[in-house]
């Protein structure tokens, strides 16, 4: 059963601490998305990778957020230092694109982050 796996599922941290969220995309998918979901803003795109290269991170606060794909099986989203306003559910999604073809994005279960 192919699925996107995110860890941890829940994270509570103190303001100022570093937070790292991990995502294992579905095997064979070449695109990875990081989304943030809050009640007020809904789902917002933070970063988008294709073939491990970052293509769009315009939605991500550059001063404290960073996203990487060390290899095809791992994507990371890091917040340093974390702030209470970063509290949200962070979703990773993966899909497949090639030329004009693309599939839907499959979402993981999310990481619920609480910064106190």
């Amino acid at each position, binding site marked *: 059963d192919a699925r*996107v796996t995110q860890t941890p599922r829940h994270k509570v941290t103190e303001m100022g601490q570093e937070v790292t969220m991990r995502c294992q995309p579905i095997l064979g998918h070449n*695109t990875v998305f990081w989304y943030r979901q809050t009640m007020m803003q809904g789902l917002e795109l933070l970063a988008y990778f294709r073939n491990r290269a970052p293509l769009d991170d315009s939605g991500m606060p550059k001063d404290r957020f960073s996203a990487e794909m060390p290899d095809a099986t791992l994507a990371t989203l890091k917040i340093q230092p974390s702030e209470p306003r970063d509290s949200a559910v962070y*979703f990773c999604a993966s899909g497949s694109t090639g030329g004009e073809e693309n599939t839907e994005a499959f979402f993981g279960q999310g990481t619920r982050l609480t910064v106190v």
Partner: protein
Amino acid sequence: EDQVTQSPEALRLQEGESSSLNCSYTVSGLRGLFWYRQDPGKGPEFLFTLYSAGEEKEKERLKATLTKKESFLHITAPKPEDSATYLCAVQKAVRGTSYGKLTFGQGTILTVHP
């Protein structure tokens, strides 16, 4: 700027009471419109992709339709297990950094009472 507006924000139905959810969009060059279902505490689950006006897709009690300005998700004879938040998202037909990016609406919270 791409915009996706879903209505109503919340919808309460009795079991068996059919209805429709609306997704209005403004995007320069639509590549696809996606419908997702999201249950509490879980990630969005893919339902449908629609690519061109006039296209329709069905899955069990759900049918999605698309026009040039909006999409409808019709729910026929809903059951309590259909209760969830339904999200629509648009994807632009532009190469480069925005290709593949999904812009989501705020969602419609559907509650179906027995």
